């Protein structure tokens, strides 16, 4: 059987296609670095004494996941539907799960690449402290990627055109990014803003990754929330998916 060969091939091709699109490459790889530079120009520690870089790199890693999962992934899928790329694939023996899975992995590899760039620049340029709980950060990052991209798959599975998917994706991404603490540190947000932000599906990812990085205890509720979002949104996405 050719299953593994099939999925690795599709992943490799999809990743190359994303990287060849200047907009996607810019958004996922360069834009977060610009954000890092902007956020760290003043270099003031956060209230509580945490060096700004040690909060900003974990925060922006969620920003990168959000861009890949909520903006680029749905735009790719909906664009494929609009251009009838999906229709052609449907006439092959490839299962929807394989195609879905390959898209998901390719976009998460993009997010991983963006995150690694942030970490490298943080280490070299800004004296980033290594994560206290590496396993915890990896777990939180993966759950964050799963939960946010299942929402992205839901959008991409239903919206008829790439343009509409981009508009919806950006409409989800920017408010979430600013309210959840992926752009503005939670410590400097007002109580009410934080309360609203905590209702967005991006907030658990921000909290878990920052807790893991700082070596604070990670809340099982936060991790469980991400699993729940993944199961529910992912399940609905698979059922609602249109070719």
């Amino acid at each position, binding site marked *: 059987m050719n299953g593994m060969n099939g999925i690795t091939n599709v992943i490799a*091709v999809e990743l*190359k296609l994303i990287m060849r699109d200047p907009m996607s490459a810019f958004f996922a790889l360069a834009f977060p670095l610009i954000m890092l530079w902007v956020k760290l120009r003043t270099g003031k520690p956060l209230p509580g004494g945490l060096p700004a870089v040690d909060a900003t790199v974990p925060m922006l890693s969620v920003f990168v996941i959000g861009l890949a999962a909520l903006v680029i992934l749905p735009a790719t899928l909906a664009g494929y539907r609009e251009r009838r790329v999906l229709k052609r694939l449907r006439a092959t*023996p490839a299962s929807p799960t394989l195609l879905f899975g390959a898209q998901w992995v390719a976009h998460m590899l993009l997010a991983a690449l963006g995150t690694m760039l942030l970490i490298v620049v943080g280490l070299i340029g800004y004296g980033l402290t290594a994560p206290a709980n590496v396993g915890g950060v990896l777990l939180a990052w993966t759950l964050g990627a799963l939960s946010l991209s299942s929402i992205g798959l839901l959008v991409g599975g239903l919206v008829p055109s790439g343009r509409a998917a981009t508009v919806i994706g950006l409409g989800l991404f920017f408010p979430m990014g600013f309210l959840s603490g992926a752009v503005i540190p939670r410590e400097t947000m007002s109580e009410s803003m934080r309360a609203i932000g905590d209702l967005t599906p991006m907030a658990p990812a921000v909290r878990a990754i920052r807790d893991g990085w700082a070596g604070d205890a990670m809340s099982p509720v936060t991790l469980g929330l991400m699993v729940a979002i993944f199961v529910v949104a992912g399940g609905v996405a698979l059922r609602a998916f249109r070719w």
Partner: protein
Amino acid sequence: MTAIEMDGLRKSYKGGNAVDGVSLRVERGEIFGIAGPNGAGKTTIVECASGLRRRDGGTLRVLGLDPQSDRRELLQRIGVQLQEAALPDAIKVGEALRMYASLYAKPADWREVMDEWGLTDKRRAGFASLSGGWKQRLFIALALVGNPDLVFLDELTTGLDPSARRTTWGLIREMRERGVTVVLVTHFMDEAEALCDRIAIIDRGRVIAEGSPRELITRGRSDSLEDAYLALTGRGTA
């Protein structure tokens, strides 16, 4: 050996082109043409036979399989070129062939297919940069890369210039020489006459005539298949 046995196929849509009791037999190794005016139901017949659409009624066996209940098994053994289907703009010819080959259990060697269809020089060209003729050539190669026993080609030469059309005809004859059964949907009668062993003419969801090009020309009391087609569909006088 029969490639397709279709009896009383029915499919209706809200406001779409219906198929109303079509029966066809396609033998292994032949080029079988499905011709008819736009909206006659040709594409619907192909979509039902290739497992892309569920039929409302009738019996249908393709390579001995039911396109609905044995869909995945059937898709391993057929190749499809669809009207209006596309590839991502940035994908390269070689990447597309390699990726599509990897989706099948027993594919052909994609490099050989690429070579046989003259695509090796274009392997690094992006899909969006290809001309219509090269795109069609790539779609034929993609339909064959899974090493199918049967291929469906839907309006393959629409939009091609005359020389690209003639080249494509040669490629389709080559497929038959390799033992692949070809179902060719077309509304060009010169194409059907030049290529097909047998043709079914479809109008308003029904088969109105079936036979070899020669038989149809005789039956239509005409000199060419195009004249016979116009006589048989009753559209020559309009």
